[in-house]
């Protein structure tokens, strides 16, 4: 117990406290670092770049997460229904992308999106007109959403599937004796059974969305023009501290986003558990 708490304190609590401390200062080219009170927070709340990024990840969360979790839920229910040929193959094959490193996932999709290297060129040739072009302003966020969905559908499916497995067989027996059909069983037994797991998956997805960094940052290497230095709040904070030398303001951005995320996660959790009692 103690060793864990020691490293926990060193590498989670200390950096957190330190970043709160940092956020109260100001870095200037001239005059060095001075105490600034809550000035950074005032700046952050009125910073159009930050809100641009925050709006983008918010949109991402509202669109990508429901699609991803919807697919995961359908897959989990289908696998659990016992009506599939080769169910364990499905389970493993769907989960496989989770094991693929994010960098590699982005590389693969990033190349496949490319019309020379990849498949979109072939697809567009096939239909005869430019159907999709992931590397445009309109498509790029969708393209990122697709990568994230690909990475995590199977992972979320497994969380939901594990929850379904905990339903005792007797309940299904009783339900079918009472004449409930498959859909009725799904609606009245299975969906309530996965509510808790779905809530956890949602909260993890909220964290993931609002902290979006790796996928856009790697795609930026392939398509520098499409992804700005403040594309997501995390990319913004990263660029502020490592290319802009504005460490204090970067810490502030990170804290503000952390708080926003926490509030949203909390609201979702409240809504999700309300019907329990």
């Amino acid at each position, binding site marked *: 117990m103690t060793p*864990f708490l020691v490293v926990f304190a060193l590498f989670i609590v200390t950096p957190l406290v330190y970043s709160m401390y940092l956020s109260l200062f100001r870095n200037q080219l001239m005059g060095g670092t001075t105490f600034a009170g809550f000035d950074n927070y005032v700046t952050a709340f009125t910073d159009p770049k930050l809100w641009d990024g925050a709006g983008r990840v918010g949109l991402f969360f509202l669109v990508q997460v429901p699609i991803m979790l919807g697919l995961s839920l359908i897959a989990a229910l289908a696998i659990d229904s016992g009506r599939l040929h080769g169910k364990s193959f499905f389970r493993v094959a769907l989960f496989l992308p*989770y094991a693929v490193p994010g960098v590699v996932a982005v590389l693969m999709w990033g190349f496949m999106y490319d019309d020379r290297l990849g498949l979109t060129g072939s697809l567009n040739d096939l239909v005869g007109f430019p159907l999709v072009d992931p590397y445009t302003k309109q498509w790029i966020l969708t393209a990122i959403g697709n990568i994230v969905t690909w990475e995590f559908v199977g992972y979320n499916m497994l969380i939901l599937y594990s929850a379904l497995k*905990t339903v005792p067989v007797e309940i299904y*027996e009783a339900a079918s004796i009472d004449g409930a059909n498959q859909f009725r069983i799904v609606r009245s037994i299975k969906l309530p059974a996965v509510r808790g797991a779905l809530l956890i998956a949602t909260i993890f997805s909220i964290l993931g969305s609002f902290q979006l960094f790796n996928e856009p940052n790697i795609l930026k290497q392939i398509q520098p023009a499409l992804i700005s230095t403040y594309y997501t709040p995390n990319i913004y904070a990263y660029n502020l*501290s*490592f290319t802009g030398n504005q460490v204090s303001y970067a810490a502030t951005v990170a804290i503000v986003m952390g708080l926003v*995320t926490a509030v949203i996660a909390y609201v979702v959790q409240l809504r999700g558990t309300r019907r329990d009692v």
Partner: protein
Amino acid sequence: MAGYSYLRPRKSVTLTVLLGALIVYSVLPLAWMLFSITKTQPELLSSFGLWFSGPFALFDNLQQVVTHDDGIFVRWFANTLVYVVVGAGGATLLATAAGYGLAKYRFRGRNAVFATILGAIAVPGTALAVPTFLLFSQVGLTNTMWAIILPSLVSPFGLYLMWVFAAEAVPSEILEAARVDGAGEWRTFFTISLRLLAPGIVTVALFAIVATWNNYFLPLIMLNDPNLYPLTLGLYQWLADASGIGAQPVFNLVITGSFLTVVPIVIAFLLLQRYWQSGLSAGGVKA
């Protein structure tokens, strides 16, 4: 399981096909990768992505990957192994000991500890990385292997999984019985609990391994010496080399290198399936 048969409905072809579409989506990029690693650089740019084309260049590509730039890829591979063994191994040990302790011993402040750790799961790694970098640079730890290893040692999610798992898998009565029989705490842990905890430990270890193996952000900010890079950052570097202005195109290296990065972790998952699937199910009970 007699009496369960009417709940074993006929296999549905429609459902299998529908879900098959999802599988196609899941394996499509991997299939693309498998075809691409057999192609030469010019073929990569000109041929259809989902079939073979041109001379079979797999072995040539593999050789180029391991020899490019004085074999830096091999070095990255070795670095990744170090990060995984020490970082993920340490994280698993700590999470196991702490999760077990939280689940099986009552002590003052236990709930507070648990709440703090749950809260910490929600703290994103990226938010911690910048202050950690600054702290490390003050003590001279940046651009060393420790900069990657030390932060990977903490796995709040691993601890959570372990706590849930230990609470389920190790009945307190067994521990009581062992104590009554005069076994010390250590002996109880090593002879009884450890065995019962095995699937949970494998699960936690696998997730820690994946997290370390796939880690990209932390090395990105901590390291600037390519000799210390893990595979992920190395590939990113190659990508930058390949797509920069006036750069030499090494897409075949990036793709073949990616393939070599994926293979070990996928094998680990497939081999240990039985364990992590049961480990996760137990996690799902409490969840």
